[in-house]
């Protein structure tokens, strides 16, 4: 078990007040708060070692390059990647997924990349619970290439319709991209089943781990997918950096996405040859100060232990589900039992708009998110304009769940 009170002391923002009362931060699925070690790591890079990476021969350039490349090793260990050069730094997960989608459409005109070509007659499969980052890039890829865009539907409880997995993913499927843990519903998807089906039909499998990375141990070798992506700011790291992992043999043949500095081998006016992965996919000056700060966040999480993180959050989630069930007129959108679900709970309350709920909770110092959570099709599926969402992290306490419940009852009283 972890000692939440000790962890909370590492997060300076958790001591602040909002509207004259202590902050209760229940919006970690949107973005997680930062421990002091992360803030210090970014400041230290700027204060002591800052220079551009990979190209400067001077001492600072060398130190910054070491810090940046050491961060790649840290990420590789965090996800158990077999090779460090399978880890690509991006701006965030949206860029990571767009990188893949654009590299695939570039395959049509890139010598040697024929195996990646997506075109008419092929299809691309996502799920109905994707957030827009893992939905729009694939719609756009389908539009560019003439492939068909498909999705696996969800049932009333917020789980994938199992029978549809084998039906939607078929012999013509080229790409299967799906969320590990839903940001809108909290659902944890059957990764092994989806990856196995994708492999069976010869499709590429891509895991959106934005909401899984902060909460579960990740092992890309055990998961078995071809690609996996997550973003730094949700794993208690800085904004401006994300990660794309891919199997080396695939990355080695995948065409580039963005062109620019550091992604080339030789450049002439007649043509350019490209660097090996990961640099082929890291055009331009990268997030230099953010990489060591992300590494600091990962070291921080690893010291706590991802199994301990999972256990703590499972306890908090089960407690919150029990307590929310006692609020009259409250409906959970997503699985209402702790089985295969993460620490993110969306709900509606009879007769009160989610934005009113969120605003009134804010006046009591409680930060939650209201809206469609960048997953509008999920709201459409359940016939609601929006939900209120409480999401938990390593620093969430049962007392904060109690504050949420008291806050919700007060909102009901005001609107009653």
């Amino acid at each position, binding site marked *: 078990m972890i000692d939440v009170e000790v962890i909370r002391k590492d997060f300076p923002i958790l001591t602040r007040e909002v*509207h004259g009362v202590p902050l209760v931060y229940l919006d970690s699925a949107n973005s997680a708060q930062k421990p002091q070690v992360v803030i210090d790591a970014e400041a230290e890079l700027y204060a002591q070692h800052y220079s551009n990476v990979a190209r400067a021969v001077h001492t600072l350039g060398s130190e910054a390059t070491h810090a940046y490349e050491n961060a790649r090793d840290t990420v590789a260990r965090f996800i158990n990647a077999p090779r460090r050069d399978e880890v690509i730094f991006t701006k965030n997960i949206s860029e990571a997924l767009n990188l893949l989608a654009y590299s695939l459409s570039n395959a049509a005109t890139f010598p040697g990349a024929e195996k990646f070509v997506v075109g008419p007659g092929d299809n691309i499969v996502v799920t109905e619970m994707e957030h827009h980052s893992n939905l729009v890039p694939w719609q756009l890829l389908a539009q560019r290439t003439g492939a068909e865009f498909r999705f696996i539907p969800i049932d009333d409880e917020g789980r994938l319709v199992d029978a549809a997995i084998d039906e939607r993913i078929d012999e013509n499927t080229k790409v299967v991209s799906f969320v590990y843990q839903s940001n809108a519903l909290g659902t944890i998807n059957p990764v092994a089943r989806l990856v196995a089906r994708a492999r069976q039909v010869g499709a590429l499998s891509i895991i959106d781990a934005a909401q899984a990375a902060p909460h579960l141990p990740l092992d890309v070798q055990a998961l078995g997918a071809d690609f996996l992506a997550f973003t730094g700011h949700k794993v208690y790291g800085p904004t401006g950096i994300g990660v794309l992992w891919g199997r080396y043999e695939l990355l080695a043949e995948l065409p580039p996405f963005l062109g620019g500095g550091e992604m080339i081998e030789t450049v002439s006016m007649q043509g350019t040859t490209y660097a090996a992965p990961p640099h082929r996919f890291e055009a331009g000056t990268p997030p230099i100060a953010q990489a060591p700060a992300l590494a600091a966040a990962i070291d921080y999480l690893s010291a706590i232990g991802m199994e301990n993180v999972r256990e703590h959050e499972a306890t908090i989630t089960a407690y919150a589900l029990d307590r929310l069930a006692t609020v009259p007129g409250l409906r959970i959108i997503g699985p209402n039992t702790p089985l295969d679900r993460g620490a993110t709970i969306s709900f509606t309350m009879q007769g009160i708009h989610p934005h009113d709920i969120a605003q009134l909770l804010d006046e009591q110092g409680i930060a939650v998110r209201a809206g469609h959570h960048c997953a509008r099709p999920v709201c459409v599926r359940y016939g609601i304009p929006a939900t209120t969402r409480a999401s938990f992290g390593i620093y969430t306490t049962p007392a904060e769940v109690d504050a949420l419940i008291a806050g919700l009852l007060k909102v009901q009283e005001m609107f009653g």
Partner: protein
Amino acid sequence: MTASMESMYQQIILDHYKHPNHRGELEDFDAEVHHVNPTCGDEVTLRVQVRDGEIADLGWVGEGCSISQASTSVMSDLVVGAPIENALALQEKFVELMQSQGNNTLSEDEVEALEDAVAFEGVSKYPARVKCALLGWMAMKSAVAEAVGPASPATEEKS
């Protein structure tokens, strides 16, 4: 700083939300508009009847957050029976109040003219919610514009 004084949700707002005025479909009307606020998914369909340069009647139906619905109710109370000129002047003052970010510079007379609408001042501190408060007011402005022009003979015909 006490929470109640700071609250965006003044009692007047909650009262109008629970018991909205001029809510309903107007049978005899000169223009109808439908406005949407994508932030909260708020919607309002508003009809106006214009007679002799006045907003003779106004009716609306809508759904959404309390701010959008209550603000439309307050707006209706203020403009029904008012000369169009005055209604549009009030609309401008309300927009100004909403853009004040909590530091309004309206005169005492202007504040008095806005009556219950002043209760929405707190909303101006939350840019994400300003559109909610403006929804009904913007709909009224469009509906009036549609009712009076450019085909003003049509308005005459009906009256």
